[in-house]
């Protein structure tokens, strides 16, 4: 399979601030990929570059073999509504629905109407006056109804209530199943979307720390917990991503796979080995480096 998205040595600086730091990655077509990381980790910058809405300071971005920036044919197949998207003054949802088909070749007007009703977004009120949740709904409507072969969603959960979130998942899963495409969804709320992903990218401080298929996660890390001295002893030579302690007890998230020898040692010492979830991994990578190390 040819790679859908290829980034090579991509750095993006804004003045003195480095938002992305020599990122290289390859993503295949047709997955729902979770772009995970804390606020300010570089998620929106990464999405912007993939969407051709921005140019890297260094390195190259390719989508289907083309640099997407100013490449009309490539841009027509990409949709990214940013989490802080601005709309023209006094634009309402009716305006958005009427202009979208002029730009978006795969736009489904009927689906868009259905989503507007489903999210109960007011059609005639100025978008400027929308709540955070309503803004997210408009972004989701644009993203899903665009049917763009590469649909990028930037923090779609912001401000959504439980019902809207549930509805969003229902709509996204069904539409992607019926009209397969690549979705990259950025979020810092991992738990609520974890089961949707077949691939995850974890970014922190402008670097991609993890790029893996969901089936590989059990091989990437595990957790071991028990008496603190036992845990320290067991993990002394291992790559510990995160260590949590309370007096007498410790839990370590360790990079790699627990081999049979380690499992035997752990069991003998009375420690428990547990699989990690994607949320655990994000937390572990997010706290991996101390600020001093990160700056170095």
């Amino acid at each position, binding site marked *: 399979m040819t790679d859908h998205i290829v980034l090579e040595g991509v750095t993006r600086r804004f003045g003195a601030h480095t938002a992305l730091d020599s990122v290289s990655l390859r993503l295949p077509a047709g*997955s*729902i990929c979770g772009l995970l990381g804390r606020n300010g980790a570089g998620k929106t910058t990464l999405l912007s570059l993939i969407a051709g809405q921005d140019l890297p300071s260094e390195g190259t971005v390719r989508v289907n073999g083309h640099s997407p920036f100013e490449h009309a044919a490539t841009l027509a197949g990409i949709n990214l509504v940013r989490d802080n998207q601005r709309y023209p003054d006094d634009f309402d949802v009716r305006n958005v629905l009427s202009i979208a088909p002029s730009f978006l070749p795969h736009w489904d007007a009927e689906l868009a109407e259905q989503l507007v009703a489903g999210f109960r977004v007011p059609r005639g009120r100025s978008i400027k006056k929308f709540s955070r949740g309503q803004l997210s709904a408009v972004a989701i409507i644009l993203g899903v109804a665009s049917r763009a072969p590469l649909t990028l969603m930037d923090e779609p959960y912001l401000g959504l209530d439980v019902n809207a979130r549930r509805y969003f*998942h*229902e709509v996204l*899963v*069904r539409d*992607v*199943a*019926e009209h*397969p495409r690549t979705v990259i969804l950025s979020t810092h709320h991992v738990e609520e979307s974890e*089961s*949707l*992903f*077949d691939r995850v990218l974890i970014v922190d401080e402008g670097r991609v720390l993890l790029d893996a298929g*969901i*089936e590989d996660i059990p091989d990437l890390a595990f957790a071991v917990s028990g008496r603190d001295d036992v845990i320290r002893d067991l993990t002394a030579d291992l790559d510990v991503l995160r260590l949590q302690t309370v007096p007498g007890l410790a839990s370590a998230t360790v990079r790699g796979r627990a081999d049979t020898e380690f499992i035997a040692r752990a069991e003998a010492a009375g420690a428990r080995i547990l*699989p990690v*979830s994607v949320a655990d991994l994000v937390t572990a990578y997010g706290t991996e480096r101390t600020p001093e190390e990160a700056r170095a």
Partner: protein
Amino acid sequence: MFTGTTPLFQQLATRLADDIVSGTYPEESAVPSATDLAVFFDLNPATASKGVNLLVEQGALYKKRGIGIFVAPGARELLLAQRRERLRADFVEPLVREARLLGLDPVEIERLVRDTIAKEPS
């Protein structure tokens, strides 16, 4: 809805198998499409397909092109046979291990099982 220890597609397959065995989906009846299952359980569509395909490969489900997925004739018996095979490994062996750890001898273990069967309302 699903827990973290086994892969999601396997958990979905297990659920479907449970429902076939219990008779929720009789033989030759349609089961929900992979898309509906994905939507319902909040799963990636590919994951749901993988779960359904696992049962198709085992012969418990079969696909009718363009119509849907159906429970195969003999699926219940097939799944029951699989479970019988696993009964020893999944339940009996752990039981014996635990009983021995507690110091029960084989006679006592046998009695325990018989008593439990006797008390079970049939």
